[in-house]
């Protein structure tokens, strides 16, 4: 579904993403962890086309999309939920998702409406469909951010710390949604909340100073000495 080959991004002399390669397939959820400043969000920016990489390639379904802009990659089925929700506050909840459904998979009329309703249903927002999106509380904004990512992300969805700032119960709701998402898509999820990743991730990748330092089975990666050292003082038993 999505492949990254030797991605490098530097600002001046500072290398933020350093030769990162990985791939995800449908049905997988790749968790990404790493300390602040490890280059996680910059990696997402490189994947979705918000920044251009210095070296390396991004392939979506085998097609090299490295030269495509953000909106072109979105139209090919790459969705992204931002860490701080980027809601279209002047539109309704329904319109927030409809905009993506019409521009990404380019559905029209009744098909667009049915797809939008299905997405809102998955995200648990259907009862609030006609509300102004600007009036939603935080959890609903996070749900809407997920729904917007779903609206175009028919193949791959990037999730950037969508569980941050939520209560335990709310985190649980988000986990359930992600479980549904990964069934017919590839999901990549950056998250600091370890137990959330453990619940859904099929693999976990660790970034440190822009480099990939581990990639493998969630339990093994989290238990590894390396992760313990990077997250000094945080043991998985405490986190989970």
């Amino acid at each position, binding site marked *: 579904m999505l492949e990254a080959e030797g991605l490098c991004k530097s600002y001046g002399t500072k290398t933020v993403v350093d030769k990162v390669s990985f791939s995800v397939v449908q049905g997988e959820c790749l968790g990404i962890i790493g300390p602040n400043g490890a280059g996680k969000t910059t990696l997402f920016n490189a994947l*979705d086309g918000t920044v251009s990489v210095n070296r390396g390639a991004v392939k979506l379904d085998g097609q090299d999309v490295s030269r495509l802009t953000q*909106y072109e990659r*979105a139209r090919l089925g790459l969705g992204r939920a931002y860490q701080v929700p980027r809601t279209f506050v002047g539109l309704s909840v329904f*319109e927030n998702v*409809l905009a*993506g459904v019409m521009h990404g998979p380019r559905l029209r*009329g009744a098909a667009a409406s049915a797809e*939008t309703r299905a997405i809102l249903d998955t995200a648990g927002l259907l009862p609030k469909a*006609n509300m102004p999106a600007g009036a939603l509380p935080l959890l609903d904004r996070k749900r809407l951010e997920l729904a917007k990512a779903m*609206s175009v992300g028919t193949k791959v969805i990037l999730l950037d710390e969508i569980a941050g700032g939520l209560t335990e119960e709310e985190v649980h709701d988000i986990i359930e949604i992600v479980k549904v998402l990964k069934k017919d898509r590839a999901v990549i999820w950056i998250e600091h909340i370890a137990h959330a990743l453990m619940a859904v991730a099929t693999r976990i990748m660790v970034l440190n100073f822009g480099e990939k330092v581990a990639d493998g089975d969630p339990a093994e990666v989290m238990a590894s000495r390396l992760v313990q050292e990077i997250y000094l003082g945080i043991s998985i038993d405490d986190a989970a």
Partner: protein
Amino acid sequence: MNGPVFSRNAGLIGGVLLVGALALSAILLPVDRRLPMEICLVLAMAQGWNLLCGYTGLLSFGHQAFIGVGAYTLFLVVNTLGISPFLGLAFSATVSAVVAVVIALLLKGSRDAYFSIGIWVLADCLRLLVGQWDFVGSSQGMVLNAPDIDPTTFGDAVFWAALALVLVTQFAIFGLLRTRFGLGLMAIRDNETAAASVGIAPGRSRIIAFVASAVICAVGGAIYYLSVLYVDPAGAFDLDWQIRILFIVIVGGAGTLEGPLIGTAIYFLLREFLQDHGGLFLIIQGAIAALTMLFAPQGLWGLVQARTGFQLFPTKWVTQ
């Protein structure tokens, strides 16, 4: 019902009736046609500018440039090619579209205040350039040289042109906003990066909206100066045009199709009632603008819409 529908489509009956009644009264009222003509033109320009500011999120302080370009293009082609002034309007539209594309490219990376000030400066540059250009009479301006104009029907002809412009503008923008493209514009207005992340092409959409708003103002300006048969740079490129449009859209409600109707009504009522009182008009106009920004920043119709959700020109997609 599963298809997407527009909320309270019934409101549109009210919208069409209102616009129809206004148009009819403009046609039938036994007043000098110069005033209704000017109202039509200013309303059309305000709607064009509203498309850019209220629906695309670009606050332009330089749309007087297009009014000037439209008027000067018309005078130039009529005086040099000898064509009918009403055919000349097509040239005004074309030339202003080209100028708009050039300005859009110059201001490509500018947003918010940078865009507003950048276009203001460019508009002033155009005014100064035209003022230095001897072929169009420099700062003296130029007179329309159209011998085949029949003075008995000319006043009516420009009125009909103005009425056609405002009706086409109102309903074309309404139609545009109900398409996928219109929804994309509003998404860009709210958050450009998020819009791109859901497959909307921000740059291209913004240029299309910018050119459309420029062409409407250009044709409006061309008709206005055609009606007085004389144009000069100080008048056609006057910032006062922009201030008038700004007042109308901000007070009525930016990002609504009903707002500019209300704003235009307020503006002309004030102007007509206070025309013998000199500076009082400007003082009251300023006070109304300030009060609106303080107590109803979304404008008068914006206030109504936020409270009731009612639209005379429904552009909101809803699901049952």
